[in-house]
């Protein structure tokens, strides 16, 4: 790829194959601290947890808490523990989600305290289902104002979430629900591998990751591995989102723990169970936060606390590589 290599290291307009296109071949590699500081301002709408129970960007979430971000709107289909932590830490003003809690343990104690009693402060809740949340992001990714669906007719969700509108299909005359586009200021996606520009590969559970990345104004990619550009572009079908949407690339191995990452590590169920118990009271949650988030300088500190024994227990040992593809063109 001589043309691309000519552009390496510079943000420039390049001629590729005779067609003028913009190639931003500049490294966006940065520390997690800088990525959060720059691209998650107070008051931002942030989409995260797009892989449902897998590849949840906990490393990024903990950094958001450490930096004391405020008034965030959290967007995600389900949130397995991460939103509960951000709400309890006081980072969140509004939740746009289908489900917030702890998938194997039950209710989210901080979510309950905030929604029921305004502790640590009141939050606004915009209720969705997984489908309407996915459709909202899809509409955002399409640049469309809304998408109609037949889901949720007759439900309370249409009352408590006023952004969903009951309408009549102009062709059939039947009732439909209009789901408005959701356009996050930033989507944070955790992936297996990325190049320095943000061309990245995600496989395993996709959830709404592609729609979320395409819909967002900016994307922060958190990657288990940073690979050379040509290795990523060897399989362009697997690239999650064009790197032109990516604002920052962060190399953070184990960055989705205690959620799983296909091919890299499994889920630490015990961690979710322990959090559920320890976050029952405000004091318990503060102690949890002091230990696991505020008491460590960075994600490395979290992993040190977790211990090498746990990491070794969770590390994938039985690998199942797929068949390589042939992109031969000549």
């Amino acid at each position, binding site marked *: 790829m001589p043309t691309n290599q000519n552009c390496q290291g510079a943000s420039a307009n390049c001629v590729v194959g005779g067609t003028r296109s913009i190639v931003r071949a500049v490294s966006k590699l940065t520390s997690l601290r800088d990525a959060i500081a720059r691209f998650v301002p107070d008051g931002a709408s942030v989409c995260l947890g797009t*892989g*449902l*129970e*897998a590849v949840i960007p906990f490393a990024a979430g903990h950094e958001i808490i450490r930096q004391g971000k405020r008034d965030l709107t959290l967007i995600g*289909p*389900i949130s*397995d523990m991460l939103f509960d932590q951000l709400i309890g830490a006081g980072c969140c003003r509004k939740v746009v*989600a*289908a*489900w*917030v*809690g702890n*998938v*194997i343990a*039950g*209710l*989210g104690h901080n*979510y*309950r305290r905030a*929604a*029921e009693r305004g502790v640590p402060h009141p939050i606004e*809740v915009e*209720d*969705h*289902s*997984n*489908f*309407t949340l*996915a459709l909202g992001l*899809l509409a955002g990714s399409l640049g469309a104002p809304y998408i109609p*669906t*037949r*889901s*949720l*007719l*007759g*439900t*309370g*969700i249409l*009352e*408590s979430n006023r952004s969903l509108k009951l309408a009549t299909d102009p062709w059939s005359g*039947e*009732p*439909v629900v209009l789901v408005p586009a959701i356009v996050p200021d930033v989507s944070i996606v955790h992936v297996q591998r990325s190049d320095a520009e943000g061309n990245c590969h995600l*496989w*395993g*559970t*996709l*959830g*709404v*990751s*592609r*729609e979320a990345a395409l819909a967002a104004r900016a994307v922060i990619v958190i990657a288990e591995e940073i690979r050379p550009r040509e290795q990523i572009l060897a399989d362009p079908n697997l690239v999650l989102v064009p790197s032109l949407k990516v604002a920052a690339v962060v190399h953070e191995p184990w960055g989705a723990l205690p*959620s*799983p990452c*296909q*091919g890299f590590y*499994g*889920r630490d169920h015990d961690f979710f169970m322990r959090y559920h118990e320890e976050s029952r009271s405000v004091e318990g949650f503060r102690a949890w936060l002091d230990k696991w988030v505020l008491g460590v300088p960075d994600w490395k500190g979290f992993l040190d606390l977790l211990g090498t024994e746990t990491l070794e227990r969770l590390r*994938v040992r039985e690998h199942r590589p797929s068949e390589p593809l042939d992109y031969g063109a000549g």
Partner: protein
Amino acid sequence: MTYTDRELMVIAAAREIGDGELIFVGMRLPLLAFALAKRTHAPRALGLFENGVVRESPAPETPFTMSDPPNIAGALWSTTTGNIMALLQQGLVDMGFIGGAEVDRYGNLNTSYIGDWRRPKVKLPGSGGGGDIASLAKRFVIIMPQEKHRFRERVDYITSPGHGDGRDWRRKVGLRGGGPSALITTLGVFRFHPDTKEAHLASFHPGQSVESVRAQTGWDLKVAADVGPTPEATHAELEIVRSCDPQGFWTR
């Protein structure tokens, strides 16, 4: 052979799965029910998961969540949430499983708010995919523990629509899916009357009776003419359930 009420719920749920059907599986007990049905009477059933997975065989080890790596490895398809929901909205999904915090006599489920949603007494986690399955699947099966305060005359908030206020409510509001076909609890199995769409007790589990189920039902319980005991769990069924949940995390 003695067994827990949760084991019997799994077994009763598995019996609702038809061979060759497309089943929206989800989490917890339904995951075990799908595994059991596949290994007994429904070897050709397909399982859908809202994280984007379609499986023709249960994962070799029962995952704690649908996104655990063993549930993706060996899948028939691993795609987006949107694509799975697309199959649901097209009307291709035969049956889905849903749980809830509260249910009412028409099978409406609340997993969102106890009390007024503007000032909730309890904030529950929310719909997840439940509202979508209830809206769009050809039929759905409710699985939940039976306690009087959770079996209410009317739920405070409809997250997953059952039969609304009965009769042809679903058609009137425009819902395409067929609604709930069974409610499986720790005490018995309810089915919905073909005309009124109200839940009728169809069977009571071993050790229970119509009266003991009535005592834990928060509305004036109707009973099917042919009500009787739920068929006992068989040795073979229990062995499979226990092999899928060896530590008893979900069923003990």
